[in-house]
């Protein structure tokens, strides 16, 4: 026996490491638990990646409202591989959210939340909330103009909670306004408070895997009966279970490894999200928008009718949480196979389609005025119609172009006016411009009669 083995034996004898880890490594898992089972561990490895890269970033970051932006510039442009480190942390967050989402869908579709794994589902929902909170607070730590305005938007959303809304909003900002307290708080939440809760719940989540075992791949017709399930599961493992290490672990390792390599490649190729302007709340020419994983909420707030919006902002999350927490209690026995539970596939597909659609519309943000819209040579009026020619300039100056498109230039808030003269006659145009519409300002108070005449003359040439 060489000295290495001897040392190993000695350490193990005095520490008991193998007693601690052998049951974890060798615990039997149901046969057939293959590639569908890799997403939970991938989420965990993304989290470990986030902790590691987070520590790296914390070595360089200044969690202070006045210095954070400069330290981010330092990390991005000067520090050794700082830009890549930021990129990995950013794409790692995206990876963690995607993996958590896929893991959750897999558990839902195969009804792995049923008896006796209700607690796994519940702790998983808590972990999802914590992960999204990490995403949000992390986006704020990128303390540029988007960071400060995202904090204000979040405070406004908190404000819609009845009775305690205003104090909560104040608490989030760390005072009446943004200031010295704001960033220190987000930093403490992002780096200490939420991660410690994640560690706690990940520990619990994993303990449950050991205690209840991972769910066996479902089979149509094999029902879960709480009275007999545990003894059936024990027997099944005794007869056909395979040791986790390495017969199941290798898939986790391969998949997680690919995920992490993909994250690093994305970080190197695309780089971290760009730093925008200084976090100056008095510099107002900015268009705040959240990172992609919260963009669907941003889109939702633009699309829901304003009358019910406050209620959606407050009751919506409550309802979603209630449904998620209620799921394992609403159905904890019976069929697990998705073939016999077609609605689970319908519901999952629906959810995925809704979120992807909201992300797509959020990305194009057609409800926002197109502030950069400029008239190009695409738009002209007959040169003998001097009123119409003058109307072109007005169309741009009066911000019509921000919301209306003509010949491909302009915004998408209102209808495309390229052929408006085919739809509306002169009187209808005047009425609409002067009185506005549900989603259009009334220009009656700000346009002179001459201006109105010129504008309408121009629009009449749009056919």
């Amino acid at each position, binding site marked *: 026996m060489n000295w290495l083995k001897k040392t190993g034996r000695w350490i193990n004898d005095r520490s008991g490491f193998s007693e601690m880890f052998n049951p974890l490594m060798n615990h039997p898992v149901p046969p057939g638990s293959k590639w569908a089972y890799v997403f939970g561990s991938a989420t965990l490895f993304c989290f470990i990646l986030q902790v590691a890269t987070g520590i790296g970033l914390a070595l360089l970051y200044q969690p*202070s*409202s*006045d*210095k954070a932006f400069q330290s981010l510039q330092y990390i991005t442009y000067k520090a050794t591989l700082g830009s890549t480190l930021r990129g990995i942390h950013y794409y790692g967050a995206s990876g963690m959210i995607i993996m958590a989402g896929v893991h959750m869908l897999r558990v839902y579709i195969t009804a792995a939340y049923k008896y006796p794994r209700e607690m796994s589902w519940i702790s998983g929902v808590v972990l999802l909330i914590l992960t999204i909170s990490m995403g949000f607070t992390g986006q704020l730590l990128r303390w540029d103009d988007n960071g400060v*305005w995202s904090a*204000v*938007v979040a*405070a*406004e959303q*908190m*404000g*819609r909670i*009845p009775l305690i*809304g205003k*104090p909560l*909003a*104040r*608490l989030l*900002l*760390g*005072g*009446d*306004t*943004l*200031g*010295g*307290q704001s*960033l220190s708080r987000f930093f403490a939440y992002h780096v200490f408070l939420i991660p410690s809760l994640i560690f706690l719940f990940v520990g619990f989540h994993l303990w449950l895997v050991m205690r209840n075992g991972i769910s066996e791949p479902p089979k149509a017709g094999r029902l879960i009966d709480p009275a007999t399930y545990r003894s059936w599961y024990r027997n099944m493992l005794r007869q056909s279970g395979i040791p986790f290490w390495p017969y199941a672990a290798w898939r986790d390792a391969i998949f997680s490894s690919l995920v992490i390599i993909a994250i690093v490649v994305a970080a190197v190729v695309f780089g971290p999200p760009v730093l925008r302007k200084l*976090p*100056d*709340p*008095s510099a*107002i*020419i*900015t*268009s*705040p928008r959240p990172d992609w994983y919260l963009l669907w909420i*941003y889109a939702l*707030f633009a699309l829901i009718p*304003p009358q019910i*919006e*406050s*209620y959606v902002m*407050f009751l919506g999350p409550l309802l979603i949480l209630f449904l998620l927490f209620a799921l394992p209690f609403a159905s904890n026995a019976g069929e697990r196979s998705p073939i016999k539970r077609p609605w689970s596939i319908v519901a999952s597909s629906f959810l995925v389609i809704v979120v992807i659609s909201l992300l797509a519309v959020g990305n194009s943000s057609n*409800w*926002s*005025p197109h*502030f950069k819209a400029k008239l190009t040579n695409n738009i002209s009026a007959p040169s003998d119609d001097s009123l119409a020619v003058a109307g072109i300039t007005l169309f741009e*100056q009066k*911000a019509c172009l*921000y919301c209306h498109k003509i010949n491909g230039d302009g915004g998408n*808030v209102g209808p495309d006016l390229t052929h408006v003269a085919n739809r509306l006659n002169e009187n209808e145009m005047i009425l609409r411009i002067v009185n*506005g*519409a549900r*989603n*259009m*300002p*009334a220009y009656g*108070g*700000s346009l002179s009669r001459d201006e109105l005449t010129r504008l309408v003359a121009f629009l009449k040439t749009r056919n």
Partner: protein
Amino acid sequence: MNPENKIDRRKFLVRITLLAGAIPAAIVSVPIFGALLGPLLQRQRQVWRKVANVSEINIGETKLISYVNADPLPWAGVTAKSAAWLRRESEEKFIAFSANCSHLGCPVRWEDKAQLFMCPCHGGVYYKDGTVAAGPPPKPLTQIEVRINKNDIEIKTAPVPITTITE
């Protein structure tokens, strides 16, 4: 010792152990929660800040002003600043609007030629008097107090306006 006494002794020891943990935990958590809830416990006094000269703004004009919030912390840096839109209605009358959209707080910008305030986030639009012209905002832009002090225009610092569910 009879068994009943033994249970009493066990109960007593359990209680005293739990109490021994709970008391210091409760004491220590007071200052921790003090730090967490500090922003709610310390009310901020708002102050008047000079933002412009009366002569700097013409009648009918709307101008962006920025000012330093009340009593900022030394490490607030640029985040100590806030912005507002100041409008001169007449020789004597000035009004100021918070730059925060009443929908979700994004910064509205003034489009002078169109005489409209427009929000970049969800398409909120306001008229020059701050009333809602279009889009999702549930109420007008929040006004900030303005006063004229000799030749100076002063505005009173204010919290970020938060729209509540009943508004």
